[in-house]
């Protein structure tokens, strides 16, 4: 098993929104999607996944319905709302800018002043 990385605080919401943007998904599905999409590099802490889902639900970014899963079991499915989609767009843009900025900083040449 490859070394996995804990999901950064604050990015969990973004990943959940992305996970449910493909269609109705239950909590396990969200966890699995994140693991698969990051080739098991990112591991989410499952204990904090559900509070996060419920928090997003109460904010109106995702909707929840009870239904039956593929193996015919009762499960709660989450879908992205209009509001959630807008939020996803905004957070994606913000995170992308953030990540680019961090990369840029990490790959920048050494400070000229420091060299002399």
């Amino acid at each position: 098993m490859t070394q996995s990385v804990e999901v950064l605080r604050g990015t969990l919401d973004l990943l959940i929104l992305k996970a449910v943007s493909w269609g109705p998904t239950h909590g396990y599905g969200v966890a699995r999607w994140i693991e698969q999409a990051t080739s098991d590099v990112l591991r989410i802490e499952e204990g904090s996944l559900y509070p996060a889902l419920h928090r997003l639900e109460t904010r109106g970014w995702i909707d929840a319905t009870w239904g039956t899963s593929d193996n015919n079991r009762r499960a709660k499915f989450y879908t992205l709302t209009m509001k959630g989609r807008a939020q996803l767009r905004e957070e994606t843009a913000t995170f992308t800018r953030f990540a680019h900025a961090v990369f840029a900083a990490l790959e920048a040449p050494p400070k000229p002043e420091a060299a002399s």
Partner: protein
Amino acid sequence: MRRLPAWRRYLRFWGSNVRDDVNDEIRFHVEMRVAEYVARGMSEDEARRRAAERFGNVDRALDSCVDIQEKHARAEGRAELGSVLQRDVLFGLRVLRRQALPSLVAAACIALGIGATTAMFTIGNALLLRPLPYPHGDRLVQIGSAHGTERRTGMTATSLPDFADWRSRQRSFTDVAAVWQQAMTVSSGEPFRAGGASVTASLFQTLGVTAEQGRLFRDGEDQPSAEPVAVVTRRFAERRLGGMDSVIGRRLRIAGALRTIVGVIPDRWAYPAGADIFLPLGRDPLSEGRGSRYLVVLAQLKPNVSIEAADREMSAIGAELRREHAESDANITPFVTPLREVFVGPARSGLLALGLGTLLILIVACANVAALQLARASSRAPEIAVRTAIGAAKWRIFNQLLTESVLLSLVGGVAGVAIAFAARTLVAKAVAPNVPSWMTFDIDVRALAFAAGMSVVAAIGFGLAPAIRLTRIDPAGALHGMGGILGIDRGRLQRAFVAIELALSIVLVVGAELAVQSVMRLHDVPLGFETARVTTFRLNMQGQRYASRGERVRVLTMLTNRIAALPDVATTSATTYAPGASCCSQFGTVIADHPLPPTERLIVTGNIVLPGFFKTIQIPLLAGRDFTNADGADAPKVVIISQTFAKRFWPAGDALGHLISTGSGGMETIIGIVGDVKQGRVIDDPEPQFYRPYAQDPWSDMDVIVRMKSNALLAAADVRRVARDIDPIALPISRVQPLQQAIDDSISSKQVLGTLLAALAVVALALATIGIYAIMSFFVSQRTKELGLRMALGAEPSGLLAYVMRQAFGVAVAGGLIGLTVSVFVAHALEHLLFGVRAAEPAVYVVAAGALLVAALIASYGPARRAGASDPMIALRAE
């Protein structure tokens, strides 16, 4: 994904199953993980262990999910409730604004109702609910001396010996005090009069009050030999003595003696309320007559003693004194009343009459608004029908309609409080004209709460019927056509409301008529003397100079002579109490020819007058002669009696020359008979009266009577100048006023009461008129089709007009009959409050019925004309 069957979701609908849901959700997650691990080749146990490890603390996740959901649900619930209310209020405001005029009329109706009742409430609040300003106000009582068996009326003053015995024998009270209310002359610079009282040293302890500055009276300071001291009120210190700083220890000449001021009390604690100066009584019970009753007795009940028990004890003490002092106390029974009763008692009849009146107004206003709202309901029906048809819940519509009513009512309530604020002084004057200054008729929190409560009650009162009616609308029928929307009774409910309104209006009109008639009769009562062009003022001769009887006679004669010499003055004279408004001195009287058993005592109102009194005030001399200057101190004692006096004891008409004794210290010969006058209240029956010449019994406080030649008023400045010329220090003049004014003042509270009742009646009639107008407009608009058909079938416009008018009169007659019947009972109940008016005066009811018919006529004529002018084609097309 497949959706769950409906019944399973419904199971979850009830109660808080959030926890179960989250639990299911997490368990599902773990099961999926286990299945995944098993699929990767782990054993079942291994998979389960790894899955649990992977998930972490299940309980903590569960708790925080439940927490998030519950917080959210609570916030949601609040928001929903708020938004429903907000929607209802906004929608209600829109509806009210859209129908601005009817809404305004309705709000005005409610404002009148709430305003009237709230104004009344402030009075009742002050009289009955707000505490007296004394620390143990609810335990303060007055002990009166009832003459005969009739308690609480007539003279209740007590003599000093009786008071002393009560005080030493009683066990019900922590302390007992006696008060003798007097006006006092203060001589510092220009002499002036101030309200005051001579009191026992126990007064302030009894009231439970303390000094604001200095000290109060010490025990024994009320004995005749004690140092002359005085206690004053703060307002007196500030207005008359130049502030609080230098008051204590100051020496002032009060009531003829130089006294040291030892203490100041707050104004609100003054008893009686008008008094500013308190002197120790300074009298010895042993040297006073037991029959000389002039003291008001106050007491504070011990904490665990009831009024009834105290009353029983005082009755028992009274019985002892009756045995011990049969010659003076044979007829006397002490009785205990709460101090509050002293203020409430005289106001009770007015409170009752106006309270009833304002309550009727409120009911009339509510009935009126209900009728108006029902009429408006006809225009609201399609809107409601649409909302019902598209699925609005009945309770939402019901709430919406009630919200509208409450809004209307609150608007009316706010305006009502403004009305109450403006009207309360007037109402107070009608109900409780003589109240102490601390008893203020404020719109306090309680009054505001009352107004708010009445608004809500009113809203429910007038809003419920229309709301129920509109919620019952059958949407299909209503959308089909306007005709049958309000069900089968076609406004019967409205007509019932208006009939009730009319009935109550009649009751008010009858009540007002009786009250106004009573006031008018008060004005017409023959007084027995002539008030036109007569001015009176009060003169007080106090102090050392006037200790001599001769000096008092000399000064009063000189003063009246000098005033008679003023330009425009016709004649002058003087009497102890001017008739008409001020009662009076009463004297134990003995008639030589009619000895009474020792248990009975004749008490007769008497005045001491200067010669020329009867001529000046124009009381007719029926027999014998007037007093002259020859009836001096050393001349034989003489008396003039009133007609009623003469008739009662000498029915044969031979009263002249008989001997009576009225307290001058010997027997007096009757030398004349004069006409009866109203000495005290105008409403009193004529009673025996006598007059004695001033020279034979010169009192120090006199009312001077001045008759002018023209209608010019006597100038107070002239009178004061004359008095100053005679004595610049100790001859104060007060209350310079036309005699008629004093009489008017004495009946003004009844007059204001009558006016207020009349105003209420007018308002009720106006409301009823609006009510009739509303239902008749509704009636006509509902029957457009029927009227058009009648027209098409050949009915005359005048016939239709008459048809509609008949409907209006049906309601008017029904309401009128109920109202007249109720009025008869109400009038009988109120009869004892009225002067010179019987409850069963047909004219009163005829006028009320007439007023009602005129109102019905005015209100229905407009709608009826519209009916008469209806166009058959338009009418038929309307549906």
